[in-house]
């Protein structure tokens, strides 16, 4: 057998976990990449041009397509982040028990969570960059500031993926995951200002939109794509999203520790 000189433990163990997830992704990326490009193309055509044709004069002086593209980008980031944090996390814990295998190695609970979160981030970033390429080619981006949507989408991804990790790791049946889509993701997507301005909602309902992490990312992304100032302060948005990410991280680590250290 090859004699191993006892190797030093990895300096950033979470990167080894990310590497594992990327090896798995290598088998499926083609299907994923295809939908990453197809989805924005279809949504831009459908919502921007299709629905937009019925909206005379656009929204706030820009065409409906240009107005909606920032919101769609943010909601794409949300969809990918949550899809990658629900069944995959639940399955690694309950079905294939991948996390337990990792737990028997020198990895710590935090490494396991961080490495998987990093993979979710990778998936969101590739989807968002594909989205920018497609919409840019279709001429839907008004300003070069649009590149700033990438870090915003990354922050949104962490803000929703981290608490979703905690949720998916704490439920006992995967039917709770479908509930998350029904009662959180879909309403958020519909009412957090992606398809119409939050100001169109009755006053009492608007705060519901403001509470969601999605609205804060939508406002920032839309402003970047249009090259205008956002409705809220940039720092306020970023702090709010960062608070979700930090709170979610702490929660996820705690739930994972409860599951993996028994």
């Amino acid at each position, binding site marked *: 057998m090859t004699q*191993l000189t006892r*190797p030093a433990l990895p300096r950033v163990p979470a990167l080894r976990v990310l590497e594992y997830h990327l090896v798995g992704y290598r*088998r499926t990326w083609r299907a994923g990449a295809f939908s990453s490009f197809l989805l924005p193309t279809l949504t831009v055509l459908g919502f921007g041009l299709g629905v937009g044709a019925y909206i005379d004069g656009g929204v706030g002086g820009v065409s409906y397509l240009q107005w909606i593209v920032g919101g769609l980008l943010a909601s794409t980031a949300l969809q990918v982040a949550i899809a990658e944090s629900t069944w995959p996390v639940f399955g690694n814990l309950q079905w294939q028990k991948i996390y337990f295998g990792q737990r028997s190695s020198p990895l710590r609970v935090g490494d396991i969570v961080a490495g998987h979160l990093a993979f979710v981030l990778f998936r969101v970033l590739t989807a968002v960059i594909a989205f920018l390429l497609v919409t840019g080619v279709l001429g839907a981006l008004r300003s070069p500031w649009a590149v700033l949507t990438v870090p915003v989408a990354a922050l949104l991804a962490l803000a929703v993926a981290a608490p979703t990790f905690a949720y998916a790791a704490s439920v006992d049946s995967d039917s709770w995951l479908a509930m998350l889509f029904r009662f959180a993701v879909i309403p958020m997507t519909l009412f957090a200002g992606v398809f119409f301005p939050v100001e169109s909602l009755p006053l009492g309902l608007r705060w519901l939109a403001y509470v969601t992490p999605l609205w804060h990312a939508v406002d920032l992304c839309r402003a970047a794509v249009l090259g205008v100032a956002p409705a809220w302060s940039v720092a306020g948005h970023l702090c709010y999203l960062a608070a979700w990410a930090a709170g979610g991280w702490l929660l996820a680590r705690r739930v994972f520790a409860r599951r993996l250290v028994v």
Partner: protein
Amino acid sequence: MNTGRPLIQARGLVKRFGDFTAVDGIDVEVSAGEAFGFLGPNGAGKSSTMRMVGCTSPPSGGKLRILGMDPVRDGPAIRARLGVCPQLDNLDPELTVRENLTTYARYFGIPRRVARARATELLDFVQLSDRADSKVEPLSGGMKRRLTIARALVNEPDIVLLDEPTTGLDPQARHLVWERLFRLKQQGVTLVLTTHYMDEAEQLCDRLVVMDGGRIVAEGSPRALIERHATREVVELRFAAESQEAFAGKLDALGERVEVLPDRILVYVPDGDATVAEVAALGLHPTNVLVRRSSLEDVFLHLTGRTLVD
């Protein structure tokens, strides 16, 4: 490596889950190069003990030292030198056989090139080379088990922990696993395993403890346990009557211990053939007579009882 200090040292080790005490103050020492077994019925506390030794479950009380380190404080450093084969396989079914080994090796800080070489050697060792590039999903239970064992060896561990390594495998697959584990033992790898198969314990373990209800009820080599807790031979008698009970009284004087089962009577004796002659001399005519050596199974059932625990 062998400094005479035990690799695993437990004193009064306790594991509690709420009100339930799974491990109730056990003392265990395992030395380098030993094959050590935890035997016991389901719920005896074997797996809880293994998880504490594997540094994934903090002890609720007592003292535990693995490789001279504290499992709570030095978890990653200890786990870097352990190989763990869990009761249920947790391989990635989507990855290939080889990728399961190489990705796992990376967790230990093993460079990619070394990980690949190591995977090739280990697949050869567990006789899975021809499946190296197929996915794990369609593999048989025995193949998955061997792959899990290979994965446990990827870091050249000082101690390999095997939690029920052959449960659920068919006889051919079990023998292949045993043969591989025996090879490891010959190479001087320290093995710690749990099992409820007596033949497995007799084949593999130099020394073992029998656990029941979270406690250790016996300790020693398989041979010593049989000598201490059972007679040399067992005579199994089967009578045609409805109840065996009627004959039991007449047999009491024949053996050191007589056990009446619903379908047969076991007489524990030093010399089985002599006893068979005595039975005939008493004028009893069992329909079926079997003389056999005592096994670890007799010890096990004697110590932990015949009541079914699920």
